[in-house]
């Protein structure tokens, strides 16, 4: 079970012919897969396609009814390699991951897959994490398509079009024997819309059929001389077949308009923003009827030269709208127009920014600049009203809101311990990793010098492996560990006699991507499965110094990391920091507790409290925590200027702020409130005796105090 349950939504996957689907883009695509008769699906989670994996995981019943295999692949490379089942068998397949990072990981297998070619339609749904809200380096997946000659589908973002293009993608893949990318952006994944559904299709050829009658095609193995033949096959057969299919089926679209001497060419995914910009400029209506002819590339690779030449032949100029860089398509366009001996001018990055997302404003400005160059008569004179306020004053008042660890997160006490350790021990070179643990590099902890990729935290301190002296530390999560960190980091460290310290944060899930199960999860997709243990795994690859510790024992964590830093043991020292992801834990425990309270069982709920009278507003506690529930409020004392710390009601009582106060000797303001529900008789007896004595003494002091008042 992932962070978000799709149990309700997956019912929509059963809709038959003629029904109307309402829902998110990513769910629509899942439905599209079932309508296309896929035989197996898989992938690796990551925004914005995590939900696709979650939907598939929650849709086990439907998938098994249809005979579709779902694999929660261990990494994107694994997912890509799995697609080899479609090389020699007519099995339709789909996998998904976050791109470009996931495509980077998968690219070895993808190159091999693309070289061998497929006979079963093979679609890789990539969540292109570019622009606002992106969490990764800003690159284009386009290059991968070009280098491996895999087709790149970038559909207009509306549900009927996306589903239709997905179905066509399988056909295109099959007729051209080529695996292809189906690219979706964050907003398209979360897009709510509707489309008319078709019946789901059982795969006509099954995985069992393949195993019963294995096919071995020597020329599809990636060894010379076949590799040379495969390259030729790509160029001579597969590419032309793809272009023919694209043309025959009208995958790219032309929306003509009366202003025939200019035109705009763009990636399908940008359709809505181009139309909105044209509407803003008064050149299109609400239905998308346009004054300026448009050529929409729902397939952005390969380009269809003839279509492009036909579109531009009689035009003075076209605007090529291509998001991100380098501007591969614009460059190709120059060559294509040159070969076609066109006089048409090409605008692109000259009027649009080279880097960054093309939002409505950018697009409007870009198109306006293009018009000014070639059709100044179409440029509207009015400037849109912009904000009338003083932005510089506002900018100063508004704080940035970087992401951070959740309330009660088990990684918080670990990073607090690290911060305290650095204070005593001195600064340490720390290689950080991808995952929730990445947030340790942000305020308030600022622990970690580099991030090199998922599961590569351990590998990225390899340069320091032979230094004997002050040690380096690497941090990685359990997700990254199983993704590749065990081999790339730990096994390699053993082999190279690395003397550094390797910390593995075991929160039980791939937490950052939404709490998916991993091999060492205490429960998993397949409940009765044998659980892998990180400790056994690292010992298995030869680590002699392995310690396990509970993350919330801050003092012990600090002492253990110090021990690892100073131990006389040569060789990698691995510390596994255990503490279950609080989001997942709360999801499991909270309903149970509420249920118990309702049914009259004794329960204790804990949460923290800060004494506002003793808090002096230094916020040292917050500098060691950053917990969302540990916040500030104005001091109740008018003489004090600084706000005091305050614990809000979202506190889950994990105890970190109290332990920090103890461990860092902060202040006596923290208190743990334990609220007892359905108290036992013994609770009540104790309480009344205690209250009797304490109440008497308190009343006595109150009276004394009341004698002199001001």
């Amino acid at each position, binding site marked *: 079970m992932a962070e978000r349950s799709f149990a309700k939504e997956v019912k929509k996957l059963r809709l038959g012919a003629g029904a109307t689907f309402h829902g998110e883009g990513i769910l629509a695509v899942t439905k599209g897969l079932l309508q296309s008769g896929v035989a197996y699906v898989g992938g690796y989670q990551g925004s914005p396609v995590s939900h696709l994996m979650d939907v598939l995981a929650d849709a086990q019943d439907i998938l098994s009814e249809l005979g579709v295999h779902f694999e929660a692949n261990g990494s994107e490379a694994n997912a890509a390699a799995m697609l080899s089942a479609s090389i020699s068998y007519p099995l339709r397949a789909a996998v998904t991951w976050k791109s470009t990072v996931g495509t980077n990981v998968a690219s070895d297998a993808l190159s091999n897959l693309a070289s061998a070619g497929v006979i079963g339609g093979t679609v890789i749904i990539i969540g292109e994490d570019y622009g606002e809200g992106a969490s990764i380096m800003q690159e284009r997946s386009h290059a991968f398509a070009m280098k491996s000659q895999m087709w790149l589908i970038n559909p207009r973002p509306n549900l009927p079009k996306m589903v239709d293009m997905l179905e066509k993608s399988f056909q295109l893949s099959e007729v051209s024997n080529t695996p292809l990318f189906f690219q979706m952006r964050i907003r398209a994944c979360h897009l709510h819309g509707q489309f008319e559904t078709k019946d789901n299709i059982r795969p006509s050829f099954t995985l069992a059929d393949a195993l019963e009658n294995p096919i071995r095609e020597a020329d599809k193995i990636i060894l010379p001389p076949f590799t040379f033949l495969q390259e030729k096959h790509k160029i001579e057969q597969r590419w032309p077949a793809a272009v023919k299919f694209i043309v025959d089926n009208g995958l790219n679209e032309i929306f003509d308009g009366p202003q025939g001497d200019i035109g705009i060419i763009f990636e399908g995914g940008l359709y809505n923003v181009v139309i909105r910009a044209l509407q803003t400029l008064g050149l299109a209506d609400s239905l998308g009827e346009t004054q300026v002819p448009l050529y929409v590339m729902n397939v952005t690779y390969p380009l269809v030269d003839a279509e492009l030449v036909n579109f531009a032949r009689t035009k003075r100029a076209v605007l090529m709208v291509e998001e991100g860089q380098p501007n591969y398509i614009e460059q190709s366009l120059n060559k294509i127009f040159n070969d076609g001996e066109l006089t048409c001018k090409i605008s692109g990055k000259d009027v649009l920014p080279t880097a960054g997302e093309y939002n409505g404003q950018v697009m409007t400005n870009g198109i306006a600049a293009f018009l000014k160059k070639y059709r100044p008569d179409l440029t509207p004179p009015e400037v849109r009203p912009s904000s009338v306020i003083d932005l510089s*004053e506002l900018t100063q008042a508004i704080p940035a809101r*970087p992401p951070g660890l959740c309330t009660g997160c088990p990684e918080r006490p670990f990073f607090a311990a690290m911060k305290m350790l650095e204070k005593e021990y001195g600064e340490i070179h720390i290689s950080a990793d991808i995952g929730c643990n990445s947030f340790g590099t942000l305020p308030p902890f600022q622990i970690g010098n580099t991030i090199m990729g998922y599961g590569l935290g351990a590998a990225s301190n390899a340069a320091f492996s032979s230094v004997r002296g002050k040690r380096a530390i690497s941090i990685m999560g359990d997700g990254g560990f199983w993704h590749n960190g065990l081999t790339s980091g730990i096994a390699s460290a053993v082999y190279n006699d690395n003397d550094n310290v390797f910390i593995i944060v075991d929160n039980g899930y791939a937490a950052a991507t939404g709490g998916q199960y991993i091999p060492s999860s205490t429960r998993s997709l397949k409940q009765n499965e044998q659980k892998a243990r990180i400790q056994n795994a690292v010992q298995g690859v030869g680590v002699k110094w392995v310690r396990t510790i509970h993350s919330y024992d801050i003092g012990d964590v600090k002492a253990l990391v110090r021990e690892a830093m100073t131990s006389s043991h040569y060789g990698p020292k691995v510390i596994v920091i255990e503490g279950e992801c609080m989001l997942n834990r709360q999801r499991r425990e909270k309903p149970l507790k509420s249920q118990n309270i309702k049914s009259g069982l004794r329960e204790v709920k804990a949460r923290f409290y800060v004494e506002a009278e003793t808090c002096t507003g230094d916020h040292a506690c917050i500098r060691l925590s950053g917990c969302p529930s540990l916040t500030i409020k104005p001091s109740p004392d008018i003489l004090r200027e600084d706000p005091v710390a305050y614990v809000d009601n979202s506190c889950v009582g994990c105890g970190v702020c109290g332990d920090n106060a103890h461990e860092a000797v902060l202040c006596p303001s923290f208190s743990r*409130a334990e609220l007892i529900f359905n108290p036992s008789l013994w609770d009540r007896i104790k309480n009344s005796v205690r209250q009797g004595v304490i109440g008497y003494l308190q009343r006595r002091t109150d009276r004394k105090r009341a004698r002199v008042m001001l």
Partner: protein
Amino acid sequence: MTRPITIVISALGGQGGGVLTNWLVNMAEQCDYFAQSTSVPGVAQRTGATIYYLEIFPKAETKNIPPVMALMPMPGDVDILVAAELMEAGRAAQRQLVTRDKTTLIASTHRVFSIAEKMAMGDGTGDSDVVIRAMGKAAKEFIAFDMESLAASMNCVISSIMFGAIAGSGRLPFAREKFEDAIRAEGKMVEANLKGFDAGYRAAEKPYEPKKQIQSFAGKITGHANSKQAEALIERINALPEVVQEFAYAGAKKLLDYQDIDYAVQYLTIVESFAAKDKAPHVLTHELARYLALWMAFDDVIKVADIKTRSARVRKYRAEVRAKPEQIIHMVEYMHPRLEEIIGTLPVPMAKLVQKSSFLTWFFKKFTGPRLSDTTKISSFLMLYFMASLRSIRRKTLRYDQEHTHITGWLNQVGHALEVDYDLAVEIIRCQRLIKGYGETHARGLGNFKAIMAVIDRGQVTAGKVGDMREAALADDEGKALKQLFAA
């Protein structure tokens, strides 16, 4: 050409922006509108803000042909912007999504502080007034109220309040019942959500009222004196310059509460002596009244024990953790007394003795270190009650002696400075702000304070420079900024 109605919702994790979006989409579809929504959570799914964007379009206008709707808001093209937190509203305006010709801005005025604001060593909070002023100017219509406290008082989620406020704004062409139908159709927590919806609806009908500024003190202090001595004290406070009275009264009350009426008298006498040397607008005395009171009420073990054993504290505590009236609760205090603090509560001669004797030091060390004490248990309570009772000997304790030595030195320094440079004297007073907290925090603050005082002692320091040093001392807790300034 008709344009769609465009709506932006900016919400933080857990505020139910997704639920709100679903209600809007479902309502619009029920009312024969095309509706399209999308969102950008990104990494923001962990504690950051999520932006939802919706467009709706009447089906009748296009003869049922779906229009092309955008996936992201465009500056100058937003009809309704809902922000579930004040700074997120400000951020939307910063992105130019709020414009005078179109935008109805519906914002909650409460704050969810960001980490940078929270972790500052002093007050790092952003200026809400700036944002509210800008919002009022930027929007066509500005609907703002504290949605969070309203939600808390109605025991509902903030998303239902926002939904009500959207309905109340009258910017959507749907009757109130259609909104309520959407809540019912979703079928989750219907009663609570309808209640919240109603509260939000009504709140949105009222125009935004800026929070009334707390009236700065005017007139005479009346107080609640119940003895001759106390009455005399009130009279003396009222004899002070008017601008000083509020702080002097708060200070005297604080010190009466902290120690006894004589201590308050002691405080007031010092304030008066400086007031006599001060002139209008009495900035120096005003600042002194504040910082002297804070210093004289230094945070010793006795104070902490006193506060934690009071009946009023139990009431406040129970309310804050939301304990039900008769519910049994435990209050487990995290204490970490250090040797200095324990020795500090001993009378000076005894404290000196302990410091000299290794046996006694060893003995008293037994009482130090991290401990949890549940003040609802008799043993723990008695222990703290006993510590609080040491108030009667506080004046004889080592800590008192140390603090008052510092206070005297500080007042002398203020006095000397006053003879030559008024502003410098004021800045010296303000440096007391650095001394706060316990343990290491206190040691660090006092260290910075002493370092700055030493620079002042060497002479040739301007008031401005002292202010800079104080700011530098509050810039980071490793003393980097202050060191840099000293080096400069």
